């Protein structure tokens, strides 16, 4: 396949057959109870140096409690797929967890930019759409997918895409390599103990993320009986055999919101935005919300409190479509 242009960004591809061999032996086909505390899920399935991906966003249905646990356990040298991220990259970088980022959208706030400017965090350029497409390729078990985006830009130059001539229509087209994250993190509204998970509302790519990832950790607002799952199979976003751990995490998206259940905490985001201007302020933020609490439960209890939880729940007046 003649390559007309090849991006120089850092990336790696998983050989499709190695991926298949992993899926064959490591993904449990039996329906077994996968519910475990967040600490255990992260200890088991997130290793130093892993490529980590998440869904959906910092503001909406993002696995914030799992991200905090990764930081709490002080993982290092992670590479993060920032396909719709606003705060996670800053938190992970400030926590010393991050080696690099696939951008997407790098994140909000000065600090993450500063990390990149100083060369402390590596970056490979992509776009939100091509990162989602790379997850789709990973989910399909193919090494690449074609797109007419990226072409003729420096984004492509500093990506890992290749431009080839389409052998059917004859025009140049970009191929983006599959990504198969070591760990995918997805927060959902409902999940059974086996991992059959339901997301309500729009999302970036929960199914693609779970399929593409070698390990998938689900955090869920609610654990429901499998009988409910079997009564409405179209509502299953992610089937159980893609899932390695189920973490019961009510309010797990905070400071983001979960559609139909609670609104995002805009005041907290302002606090984060303010802290994201310099390292010391962010260190204090991390200490307050992550290191000084032992778990998500303690975070809710000591740092958020029942009054705020109820207020955010009350604000979630729009229920239509989220069930």
């Amino acid at each position, binding site marked *: 396949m003649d390559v007309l242009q090849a991006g120089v960004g850092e990336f790696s591809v998983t050989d499709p057959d190695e991926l298949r061999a992993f899926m064959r032996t490591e993904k449990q086909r039996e329906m077994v109870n996968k519910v475990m505390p967040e600490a255990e899920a992260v200890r088991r399935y997130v290793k130093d140096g892993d490529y980590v991906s998440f869904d*959906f*966003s910092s*503001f*909406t*249905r993002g696995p914030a409690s799992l991200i905090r646990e990764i930081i709490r356990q002080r993982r290092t040298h992670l590479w993060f797929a920032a*396909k*719709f991220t606003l705060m996670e990259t800053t938190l992970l970088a400030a926590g010393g967890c991050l080696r690099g980022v696939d*951008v*997407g*959208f*790098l*994140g*909000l706030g000065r600090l993450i*930019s*500063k990390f*990149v*400017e100083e*060369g402390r965090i590596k*970056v490979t*350029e*992509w*776009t*939100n*759409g*091509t990162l*989602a*497409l790379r997850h789709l390729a990973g989910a399909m078990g193919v090494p690449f997918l074609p*797109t*007419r*985006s*990226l*072409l*003729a*830009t*420096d*984004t492509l130059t*500093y990506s890992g895409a290749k*431009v080839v001539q389409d052998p059917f229509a004859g*025009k*140049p087209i*970009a191929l983006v390599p599959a990504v198969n994250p070591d760990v995918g993190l997805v927060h959902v509204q409902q999940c059974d103990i086996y991992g059959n998970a339901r997301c309500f*509302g*729009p*999302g*970036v*790519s929960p*199914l*693609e993320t779970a399929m593409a990832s070698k390990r998938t950790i689900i955090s869920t607002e609610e654990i429901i009986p499998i009988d409910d799952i079997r009564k409405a199979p179209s509502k299953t976003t992610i089937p159980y055999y893609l899932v390695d751990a189920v973490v019961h995490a009510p309010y797990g998206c905070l400071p983001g*919101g979960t*559609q*139909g259940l609670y*609104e*995002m905490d*805009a005041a907290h*985001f302002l606090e984060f935005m303010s802290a994201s201007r310099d390292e010391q302020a962010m260190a204090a933020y991390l200490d307050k919300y992550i290191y000084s609490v032992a778990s998500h439960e303690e975070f809710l209890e000591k740092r958020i409190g029942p009054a705020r939880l109820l207020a955010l729940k009350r604000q*979630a007046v*729009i229920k*239509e*479509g*989220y069930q």
Partner: protein
Amino acid sequence: MNGTAFTEAEFMICQCARLIRDGALVFIGYGMPQIAAILAQRLHAPGMVQVYEFGAVGALPETPFVRFTMGGPRNCYRSVAWTSMNTIFAQAQLGLIDMGVLGATQIDRFGNINSTIVGRDYHRPEKRFPGSGGANEVLSQCWQTVVIVKHERRRFVEKVDFVTSPGFLDGTPGARERAGLPKDTGPWRVATSKALYGFDDRTRQMILLGVLQGLSVDDTLKEMGFTPLIASTLEELAPPTAEELRILREEIDPDRAIIGGAGD
């Protein structure tokens, strides 16, 4: 601030809203484009269809607009479909999305957009910015893209430091098509806090189409890093109308988080 005064953001938003066609499918970027879309929907374009990169289509957002909201229930309220990012970008690639509305850190003579770095050395940037987000897809795939940008000299550059999203590239005829980009697409309008630009059909250079009422052409040119073409007939751009301001200030953004002016 008196009744006829308005912020730069308000003018940019109103300009942008006026460019949104009724009955068009419009890809909406984060922030100001969201406000512009709601404004257009409430005024001349009740049938415009909001499209978001996370897959929501046809929402009628609840107001007041809550800052940061994008994928949340208020912004996605009463959509006709909730799809996914891959599905919606596929629809853009198919040619179904008429317009896109985007911000930019830098824009150049040929409408190339930079939202990645400022500086000559990619590996040692002076300033790092968030990167493409979905902007590259929007400018590559939507039929017409409106760029909404504050009128500042540092933003209008002869050549962007980094092409995040493709404009007319080097301006040669067919440059986008030769690269494999979809035919007949590209930047269509640039709406700033002072002026409105388009792109010359032949040379693909940015062309000044109009200036905010009360400003001169020189007022706009002196805050640009290059000299654009100038249309033979220049439009006088009306300031925000009382109705536009009412909707912005009373219905959409009473906290003035996006439209500004809260401190006045």
